[in-house]
């Protein structure tokens, strides 16, 4: 396909879309599927068939729309009116919608989300711009929304150096956690020498509570592929791998379809869009290890070796897959690339704040009214995310802390609710942006228990290569368990802190060195809770059982019993 043909196809798609009088978009992201959206699509399609499949009507199964706890979601698009979103639809209700339309009656108001819901209004969708609007398995719909136009532009108008410069100018930083400048990384790989080069997309996403990358891969796989292809052109790679977490079969299947369709269309494969650039993408499926999200472990896994990190340097940009320069970025990072070139690097850089540019996708969950997938400009204060978009805590409960960055991050207390959410500010508070998990907690959450939860995750996921992480995490977990069950002694808290610093300072990879963060950050902001557990044997949130006695209390009790038995003349 040539660039002109691409533009022609896009226009044709658009005309066809505009010709529809009614489009029903049913969200088919994993959460909505779990809530039964497949049956909704089937019922609607059947109804359409029964009424003779009118050409001006259309039912589309789309990717994730965002407010996942309200699924199945149905969006009604009618010419000339704003979109209407219905929540919690079952097949009957959905068919009733269609019936009402066919009978030219007004649409039911039941289950209709208010038009100006801040959940949608406060978001800014760049990466997720077509999520929930298109059928992820239909490449034409992506093209109809301007898809692969950025790739065409880059291939025909720019040199690889210019592409790298564009990404640098956009100020984009890695969305996988580290926040390293994406443009600089591309330049490094571009300048690297090697017989071959590779582009790898990291879709391993193992943090508990995070599902941004899954949604992106499921809902808009072509956006990721387009970003990878642009990267391939920029750094001089002809082969890409996308590493998908094993627990995401739907994402893998949709990517597979997307790759096949893209190759058939000539936007991937050999001679992409009639240029001299060829780019192939293969999928690699992970086998369920959090550590395989770490870049060196991920590359080892792609090469068929045991998924274990190795010491850097050399960085993958210098020596990655089979010793060749390898560009590895998070899938959301790749999801930003097409937008950088369609809107222009300067326009992209105008979003966000400080050194954090663009938007960030978060998986908002925990004790908050509107859970789901959101995308906001960097630097939005935490309060706005939780109270405006999230709608606050259910029942107006008091906010206690927000956890960002999963097992590598920390907790932000209520006193810091006005912190702008960007790389620098979160780091200042002892947390990290991480890949985008955002867990809201109220007064019913015990911070020691939260720290213990994440430590259990880390000890389970430690690869076992280095001693501080392998054994240190389990010892930290034991100390936290003692605090939670009431058997801790004063020395335990001291040992806990020392051990956290050891593990942080001496672990080989990011898993170990970030594993103590949840403990250190809760110790910093909620030390009184730790002390209540230790000295008063009391859990302020009422979560911990406190049902085991510390050894010194047991000894005392024993002594008293012995003394009492002597006094009473009984046998002990």
């Amino acid at each position, binding site marked *: 396909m040539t660039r002109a043909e691409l533009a022609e196809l896009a226009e044709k798609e658009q005309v066809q879309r505009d010709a529809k009088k009614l489009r029903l978009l049913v969200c088919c992201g994993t959460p909505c599927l779990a809530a039964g959206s497949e049956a909704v699509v089937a019922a609607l399609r059947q109804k359409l068939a029964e009424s003779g499949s009118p050409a001006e009507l259309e039912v589309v199964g789309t990717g994730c729309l965002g407010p996942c706890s309200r699924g199945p979601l149905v969006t009604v698009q009618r010419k000339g009116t704003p979109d209407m979103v219905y929540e919690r639809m079952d097949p009957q209700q959905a068919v009733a919608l269609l019936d009402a339309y066919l009978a030219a009656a007004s649409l039911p108001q039941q289950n209709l989300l208010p038009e100006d819901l801040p959940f949608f209004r406060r978001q800014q969708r760049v990466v997720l711009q077509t999520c929930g609007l298109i059928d992820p398995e239909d490449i034409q719909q992506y093209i109809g929304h301007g898809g692969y136009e950025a790739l065409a532009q880059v291939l025909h108008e720019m040199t690889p150096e210019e592409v790298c410069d564009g990404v640098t100018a956009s100020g984009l930083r890695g969305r996988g956690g580290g926040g390293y400048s994406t443009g600089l990384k591309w330049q490094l790989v571009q300048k690297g020498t090697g017989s071959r080069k590779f582009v790898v997309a990291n879709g391993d996403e193992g943090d508990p509570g995070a599902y941004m990358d899954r949604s992106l891969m499921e809902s808009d796989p072509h956006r990721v592929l387009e970003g990878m292809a642009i990267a391939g052109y920029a750094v001089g790679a002809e082969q890409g791998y996308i590493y998908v977490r094993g627990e995401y079969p739907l994402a893998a299947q949709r990517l597979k379809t997307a790759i096949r369709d893209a190759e058939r269309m000539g936007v991937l494969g050999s001679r992409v869009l009639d240029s001299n650039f060829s780019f192939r993408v293969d999928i690699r499926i992970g086998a369920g290890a959090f550590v395989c999200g770490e870049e060196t472990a991920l590359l080892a896994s792609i090469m068929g070796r045991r998924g274990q990190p190795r010491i850097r340097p050399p960085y993958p940009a210098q020596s990655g897959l089979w010793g060749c320069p390898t560009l590895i970025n998070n899938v959301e990072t790749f999801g930003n690339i097409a937008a950088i070139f369609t809107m222009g690097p300067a326009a992209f850089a105008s979003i966000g704040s400080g050194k954090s540019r663009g938007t960030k996708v978060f998986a908002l969950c925990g004790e908050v009214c509107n859970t789901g997938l959101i995308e906001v400009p960097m630097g939005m204060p935490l309060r706005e995310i939780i109270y405006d978009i999230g709608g606050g805590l259910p029942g107006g409960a008091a906010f206690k802390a927000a956890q960002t960055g999963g097992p590598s991050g920390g907790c932000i207390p209520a006193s810091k609710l006005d912190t702008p959410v960007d790389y620098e500010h979160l780091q200042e508070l002892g947390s990290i942006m991480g890949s985008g998990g955002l867990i809201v907690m109220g007064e019913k959450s015990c911070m020691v228990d939260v720290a213990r939860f994440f430590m259990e995750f880390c000890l389970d996921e430690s690869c*076992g290569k280095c001693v501080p992480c392998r054994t240190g995490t389990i010892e930290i977990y034991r100390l936290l368990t003692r605090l939670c069950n009431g058997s801790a002694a004063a020395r335990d808290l001291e040992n806990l802190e020392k051990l956290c610093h050891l593990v942080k*300072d001496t672990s080989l990879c990011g898993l170990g060195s970030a594993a103590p963060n949840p403990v250190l950050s809760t110790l910093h902001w909620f030390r009184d809770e730790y002390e209540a557990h230790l000295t008063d044997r009391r859990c302020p949130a009422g979560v911990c059982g406190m049902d085991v006695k510390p050894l010194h209390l047991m000894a005392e009790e024993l002594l008293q019993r012995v003394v009492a038995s002597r006094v009473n003349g009984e046998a002990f």
Partner: protein
Amino acid sequence: MSAITLTLNEELVTARQGQTILEVAREHSIHIPTLCYLEGLEEMGGCRLCMVEVQGSARPVPACITKAQEGMVVATDSETITEYRRMIVELLLAERNHTCAVCVQNGSCELQTLAARLGVDHVRFDYLHQQLSMDASRERFALDHNRCVLCLRCVRTCDAVEGAHTWDVRGRGVTSRIVADLDRPWGESVSCTDCGKCVQLCPTGALFRKGATVGEMVKEREFLMRLLERRRAIQGRQS
């Protein structure tokens, strides 16, 4: 090879480009404790005992892997570092069963020597009391998982020096285990050549000669460099 200058424990020293901090330190008779490192094997950087402080680096770095660089300022010891090393040895002692009094390696064990040198007189952490098995199915040697510190010297030697790749690791985290041939009893391994290299290089009493009793297992590690040098000489003659 070009020479570089760096500061090692407040003294200026010269080194060759490409040398690790550990190699430079050893040349200058500065002791840095190591466990997983063994000259002649590929470094793995797992035990973290060789961590040293480098000026300008936020965290300590492993001396066995980190290359010395021009102008680097290295301190091989400090209060923090010594405490970290002690804690790492304590973690190893707490992880599995290291009851020296009944160990074949008592008296010539690298872990025991490290502990003594670092002044580890007690373990502040919970003993994990893992009840691990012993594999005595091979005719001449045996493996006691309770004494293994997962340094992977055996895995690396068997793969790179003997070329048999009998050993590998199963599981992850604290449940990691050394396994022979995709996890069968060592005695049933078809790839093992009975060369005994792993046994000689194992720092603790995990791999030992059958029949050895308490304190009897004295290992000979010098063979590795002798062997590698001879191989290098032969290769040099052939090319």
